[in-house]
Every structure is written in structure tokens, then in C-alpha cells.
């Protein structure tokens, strides 16, 4: 499958931007999307967390397909668990652990979520710290 066929199989309303194609979904859909991406031969690239207004977090998962960026975005409530895609993409393991370290996002469906950049026992959410605030 190419990027266009993959978008059609996944469905939804994709928006074209200069950097690639973007789709907004509910977080529980991400596992099904990841499986479709793998079957299509897409390479997992990154997870980006962005604190939004209020108590929500915008999470985006990014794949590459022949140079085309396919990005899937979901708004999640603070503290709400997000399905893990590690069973489908082992390469997402570090991305999920880092997201947990930086923004305290909990990924469910994994055996464990060990710290990646932080040490055992460190409080997750290090990028949420304010200037001068101790970890």
C-alpha cells in the first residue's frame, strides 16, 4: 500500500499540510491504526505530547510512508491512560517511555513503563516543571 491507500483504509477526514497528512481520532483507535500502518509497511517515527489549554494533552503519533508523513492526533484528559502500540511496533517502546518521563502520560497495555531518561523513583512529568521548581 502507498500512503494514499493507507489513508483510505484507515478512514476519517485527513487534512493535508505542508509537513504531511493529519488525522484527529479518539485515543482508543490508535491500536487499530497502528496495526493498519504496520500491515501497510509504514515506519513508526515519533510521539509528540503537547500540553493544551485546560487539563488536556494533545498527543500525536507520526509514521513515514515513502517520505510522506502520516500524523494521527488525539486530545486526552490529564491522567487518562492511552493505549500502547508497543505490541505492534516495538520501536515505539522508547517513545512511550520518554513521553511518560516528560509529560506523565500513562500508556496501558504494556508489561511495564520503566523510566527512560529519568532514574528509577524519579517523578514523571519533568517537562511540566516550572522555572526554579525542584524535580
Amino acid at each position, binding site marked *: 500500500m502507498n500512503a494514499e491507500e493507507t489513508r483510505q483504509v484507515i478512514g476519517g477526514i485527513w487534512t493535508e499540510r505542508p509537513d504531511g497528512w493529519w488525522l484527529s481520532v479518539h485515543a482508543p483507535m490508535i491500536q487499530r491504526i497502528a496495526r493498519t500502518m504496520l500491515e501497510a509497511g509504514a515506519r513508526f517515527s515519533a510521539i509528540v505530547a*503537547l500540553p493544551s489549554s485546560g487539563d488536556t494533552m494533545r498527543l500525536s503519533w507520526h509514521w513515514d510512508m515513502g*517520505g510522506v508523513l502520516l500524523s494521527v492526533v488525539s486530545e486526552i484528559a490529564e491522567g487518562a491512560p492511552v493505549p500502547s502500540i508497543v505490541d505492534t511496533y516495538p520501536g515505539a517502546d522508547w517513545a512511550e517511555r520518554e513521553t511518560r518521563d516528560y509529560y506523565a502520560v500513562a500508556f496501558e497495555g504494556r508489561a511495564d513503563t520503566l523510566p527512560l531518561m529519568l532514574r528509577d523513583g524519579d517523578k514523571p512529568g519533568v517537562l511540566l516543571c516550572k522555572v526554579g521548581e525542584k524535580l
Partner: protein
Amino acid sequence: MSYRIPIGPYHIALEEPYKIEVDCEGETVVGSSLKVGFNFRGIEWLAQHKNITQSIALLERVCGICSNVHSMSFCMTLERIGQIEVPQRGQHIRMVMAELERLHSHLLWAGIASELIGFETLFMQIFRLRESVMDTLEAISGNRVNYSMNRIGGVNRDIPDRGKVRDVARDIRNVTEGALIPLLTTDKTILARCQGVGVLTRTDAIAYGVVGPVARASGLDTDLRRDKPYLAYGDVKFAVPVQTAGDVLSRVVVRALEIVESCKIIEQVLDRMPEGAIHAGEIYSVPAGDAVVRIEAPRGEVFYYIASDGSDTPVRVKVRTPSFANIPAVSAMVKGCDLADVPLIQAAVDPCYSCTDR
């Protein structure tokens, strides 16, 4: 009986702090686990608390080898948000810097790999070659590591002596084609250490999301310079070397062939360098918005995401380096191999722990 050998985080065989715990049965590796984060500097947090002009210098320090690609990616992401047009001459200078950086990175790796293989004469010859690239980078920028070439909207300096840069590229191409590649592909010592060692299958390469030469050595025909051209890469001719065996030798060959292609790109860019400005003027902020930019760094795709609220300080700066994508695949590569091959296999990924940890 199985036993576990911890290597690192501080070990004579490692050039940066990193830990691999290897589970063995006899001399055979049956499993491994990797630990990083020993160089964590919180660069993303810092970039979200400094203005974008300060952050150019900060992001250039993500990596001590491919420093230029980070400041360039940071600037290009802001340029995409602000719809800032970089003058053609500035784009061409960025390409020369990017390819010189790829040359020195690949030659550095080839030298270190030669030493690990036990071929010290080759190490010395490769480092002699690399030194000419470092001298060229210094002649252009005044610096050997952090070049400070990039600014939002272009570059800070022109290339003073294009003829000299062209001569260096031609010399490296000739030596690589005439001596380096034949040696790397036929020498018995190199073949004995590299062939069939540390295999990453194409399927595993996709599942682990590896990038750059590691992906291309496992049969993935991918290169952002060709697949999603940026700067003026769409206007130059170059091949994308791909190997299918997925072993250490394939990674060696891919990088050696890429040295030749980088030289060809530099020669073409210097020949077609347009006249005009090298930057778009003084720019200290960009409008509100967000964007992703991906660049083909020496080790593979660099991923930058920036969100701006219109002020001079970004709301979010996300950096995913190629080593972050490639290092986890070491676990798949070492499984079933001899313990003695672990240092070479992990080195064949060309890992940068400083980048990974940021």
C-alpha cells in the same frame, strides 16, 4: 547455564555513557537490555524557556557530530511555521554544510569501526581523509564542531573558497572509490568480522522503525533527500545505496557508498551555486502555528516538531534523533550472535548517546 554481563554505563569500550546488559548461554547472546539517559540534559525543556535566537545555539549542541543538522532543522521548522522563504544561495550553502557533515560523520564512523575490527592502518588512513573535511568546515565557518552557520531564514556566512571545497570533495571521492570501497568489500579481516554478523531483517527494521544507513542496509529504500526533497536536493543527482543482507558489512558498505554520493552532491551544488543573498533578514519570532520538519541526517531521519504561540519562545520543541530510533534495534541484532561481536554490532549502528539523551 545462562549468565548476565553488564557493560557500561562507564566502560573502556564505550565512548559515551550507555549500558547494555547481555544475557549469554556459553558464548552465545540470548537476550539483552539497553539503558540510556545518562547524558540527559533537558534540552527540550530549555528550548521551551529560551527565545528562538538563543535556542539555535542550544539545539546545535544536541549532538557533537551532526551539530549542523540540528540547528538547520530547528531553523527550517520555524521557517515552515512562518512561511519564510530562504534565498536560493542560502539553501545551497546549507546543502554543502549538510553533506560535509555527512562526510565527516561517516568517515569518523568508518575509522572507529576499523579500529574495532583491529585494522589500525585503515583507521589512520580514514582519519587522514576525515581531517581534510574538518579543515574545510573550519575554513568555511571558523569552527570544527559547532559551526554556527544557521539562522532563521538562511545562513550566517558564505563559502569563501568554493574551488578548495570542490577539490576536497573530489579527492575524498577518488580515495573512497579507488581504495576504501575495494578494501572494505574484499579484505578478509573485514569480511570475517562483519559478514553475517548482527543481522537486522527487513521485517524487524520496519517494526523497530530504524532510519538512515541502518534501514538502507536492511533493504529499506528510504532517503528523505530523494523521497521528500528539501533545500535544493530535488535539483541534484545522487543514488541511494541499499543493501539487503542487513548485517554489519551491509552497514559498512552503505556508508562507504554514501560518502561517494555526498561528494557528488557537493560538487554539483558548488557548480550550480546561484548568486544572491544568503539569508532573509533579521527574524526574531514567527507567527502562531506548529509544524514538523524531517531531515536526512548522517545517521538517518531527524524529526523536529515546534509549536509557536507567536511569541519569541516556542511552546513546544520536540527532537527525535536518528540514534533514538536506531539504538533499540541493537537488541534484535545481537540475539544469537557471539559475545565478542557485541561491541562491533552496537558500533555498526553508529550510535550517538548524546543525541539520544538530549
